[in-house]
């Protein structure tokens, strides 16, 4: 059982706060739900819409297709979305909502409560028990919600899409919160940043958390400064991160190379949005994979994660700090606006332990870049022991002094690039979903995972053989990661939210693997289940050839 509702209106009319109120109550009531938004790069006006899917089972994507209900706070919503209302769908028109607002002013002397009333209407439609509602809602709000129930009754909408609440107790996250919490769990105590959609809310979360935790957020004058500050803090002994979008990250590239050369641990979150340049600042895309894979001049190792679920986002971010430290490299978490702004239940367990950081004791003989058998030089920080920590962006000798000894250069390059072998061994394998015998496999990375998995369910339900493989780690890739899946013998469909099929290209480069088909989208919106399902169906129908 499911119910899907779209709430639309220009920025400032309250669609966003309705989403927040609704999802807050849904989560208090232990509902399964998924909510995401589509908004413009402006503070007031324009056209934004919020999409909420409520179900009696776990949901983590937009279905696509038609809506069960549309709440049109303005005419624009009517014009754009009404055509997508399900035949028997419910529609709250701007006029009707105007009525509600008018009556709210009369009854409660406050027009702003009308949005809460509308939330009440929705809750009535899905047949929320009013007593349970009363138990979880602040009392001052309850009367407005109840007024909504009354409207629902009047309009004969109450209970017509009844959804039982079956989720149990869960954490609710959007992608950015998951990453921010993951960073704290990774022991990160320093973040520097410069605001940029869709990464800004990671900074907001971190800065707020830092008020009551031993952590510091510093707003930098630009992104170049942000990442260099983070490298300074990391050098000084504190686990550090930055978060930005593609454009801000483009500015950080030289410092990524600095991290590579100086072997300074750092975690870099890149929230993708449609480019090039300023592009569509508040929309989604997966167009910066290549940018991150090849960021920075010269050659050095890195890891790139691209989580697809809330639990995975927390996990890989947490792990990023461990790996950055262990291998003394930059580690990336690649996400996007869609994942950043989608609110969903976390179905995995939430880890709470913070790994203690260990470092040896060193004396004056310490050499930051000592060539060790393990391939990893010893890491320590200034001021702890007698060891002097000398770090250099030029090619350096073991002590960290500039060198132009070209034989030593070779050994230093070999040390740095040699880590790739270790990283490949440590790589997180992709997640397989479905029947391993299925002849078709949908490959995805990053935020598309759960959309693709639901599309697979839908295909399988129609007896179309399909399975899914999701890469939560996109670099480095090793043969071990794909060995179990006999990909050579399957129809491979790569699903990516970009125009260049960047991951498909990487698969070709790394494995010589050729995607049979690419499903691409680059209008700034996320995929829906329906979309992937129908495009796969079309591709697999016998008429289609590529």
């Amino acid at each position, binding site marked *: 059982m499911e119910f899907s509702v779209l709430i639309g209106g220009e920025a400032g009319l309250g669609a966003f706060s309705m989403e927040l109120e609704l999802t*807050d109550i849904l989560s*208090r009531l*232990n509902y399964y739900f998924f909510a995401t938004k589509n908004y413009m790069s402006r503070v007031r006006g324009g056209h934004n819409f919020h999409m909420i899917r409520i179900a009696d089972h776990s949901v983590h994507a937009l279905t696509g297709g038609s809506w069960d209900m549309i709440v049109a706070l303005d005419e624009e919503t009517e014009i754009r979305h009404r055509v997508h209302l399900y035949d028997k769908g419910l529609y709250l028109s701007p006029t009707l909502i105007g009525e509600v607002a008018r009556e709210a002013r009369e009854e409660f002397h406050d027009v702003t409560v009308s949005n809460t009333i509308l939330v009440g209407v929705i809750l009535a439609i899905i047949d929320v028990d009013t007593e349970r509602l009363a138990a979880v809602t602040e009392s001052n709000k309850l009367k407005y919600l109840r007024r909504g129930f009354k409207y629902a009754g009047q309009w004969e909408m109450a209970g017509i899409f009844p959804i039982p609440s079956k989720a149990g*107790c*869960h*954490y*609710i*996250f959007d992608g950015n*919160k998951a990453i921010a919490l993951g960073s*704290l769990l990774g022991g*990160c*105590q*320093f973040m520097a940043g410069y605001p940029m959609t869709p990464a800004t809310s990671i900074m907001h979360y971190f800065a707020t*958390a*830092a008020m*009551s*935790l*031993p*952590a*510091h957020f*510093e707003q*930098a*004058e630009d992104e*170049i*400064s*942000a*990442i*260099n*500050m*983070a*490298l*300074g*803090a*990391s*050098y*000084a*002994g*504190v686990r*550090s991160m930055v978060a930005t979008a593609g454009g801000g990250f483009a500015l950080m590239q*030289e*410092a990524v190379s*600095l991290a590579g050369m*100086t072997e300074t641990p750092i975690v870099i979150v890149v929230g993708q949005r449609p480019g090039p340049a300023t592009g569509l600042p508040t929309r989604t895309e997966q167009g910066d994979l290549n940018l991150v894979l090849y960021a920075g001049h010269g050659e050095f190792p890195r890891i790139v994660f691209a989580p697809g679920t809330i639990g995975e986002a927390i996990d890989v971010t947490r792990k990023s700090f461990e790996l950055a430290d262990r291998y003394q490299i930059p580690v990336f978490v690649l996400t996007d606006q869609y994942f950043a702004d989608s609110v969903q239940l976390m179905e995995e367990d*939430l880890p*709470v*332990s*913070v790994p203690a950081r260990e470092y040896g004791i060193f004396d004056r003989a310490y050499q930051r870049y000592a060539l060790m058998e393990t391939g990893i030089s010893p890491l320590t920080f*200034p*001021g*702890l*022991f007698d*060891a*002097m920590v*000398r*770090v*250099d962006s*030029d090619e350096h000798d073991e002590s*960290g*002094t*500039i060198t132009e000894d070209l034989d030593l250069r070779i050994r230093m390059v070999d040390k740095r690039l040699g880590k790739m072998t270790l990283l490949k061994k440590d790589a997180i394998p992709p997640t397989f979903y479905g029947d391993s015998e299925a002849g078709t496999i949908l490959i995805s990375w990053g935020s598309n995972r759960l959309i693709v998995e639901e599309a697979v369910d839908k295909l399988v339900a129609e007896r179309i053989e399909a399975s899914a493989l999701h890469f939560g780690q996109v670099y480095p890739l090793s043969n071990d990661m794909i060995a179990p899946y006999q990909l050579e013998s399957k129809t491979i469909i790569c699903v990516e939210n970009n125009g260049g099929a960047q991951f498909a290209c990487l698969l070709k480069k790394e494995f010589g693997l050729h995607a049979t088909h690419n499903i691409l989208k680059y209008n700034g919106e996320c995929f829906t289940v329906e979309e992937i399902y129908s495009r796969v169906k079309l591709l697999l129908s016998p008429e289609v050839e590529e």
Partner: protein
Amino acid sequence: MIKKTDITWCPGCGNYAIRDVLEKVLHELPIPRKDIAFTSGIGQAAKMPQYLEVNYFNGLHGRSLPLAVGIKLARPDLTVVSYSGDGCLYGEGGNHFIHAIRRRLDLTIITSDNQIYGLTKGQSSPTTDFGVKNALDPRGNENIPLNPLSLAINMGAPFVARGYAGDKDHLGGIIREAILFKGTAVVDILQPCVSFNNINTYQWYHKRVFKVDNTPADRYEAMKLAEQWGDKIPIGIIYRDDKAECRELAKIFREPLTEADIREHLAMKCVMMR
């Protein structure tokens, strides 16, 4: 530990004298070497930390200050000095210079100002005098020279001084004061470059520099003094405000995040948990 022979500056370079002064000052300071961290950018001046007994992060051209800011924020217990050249700090790194000062941190910012890009062989830097000719300015530098000291005062730096590589004792006093000063201290050192700057030579300076006796208490007076250039060039502490307050910093390094922290944090962020 550092052999003189490994130093890659030209014979006669003003940086040698500055290095001697720095070693002496650091030797005399009541701060253990292990608690001193230098950052630098790229250039001849930026090699300075390599030739001292200190911790250092020799970073990218123009980026010594963000590194220093990051280190200080993470480790208020360390004495942090950013050392670089005029091109590095005022050119490529200009944005960091103006904004680092605004942060009110206890940092020391020292520059070997040779009014030229030394390592890349002699192009105009932001402090190059008007009209000077060189390979990239064959018609002569068209830009108004940047006055780093006046700019620092304008941005709110509470300690601003000019040193001269040709007067070691005087320079030593300035650097000592700057490092001990609680707050952002900016020291611009007149440093003759014998290979590429044949205008601002030792001789040229010797005739011009004079020591400031009375550091002005007024910011505008101080800027005026800082901008004095030509026949008479003031050296010494140009501006000093002992009442300016430094920012208070959180202790983070000695208090790593723990499971208890996280549990408490999760409990507070109650909206997330249902």
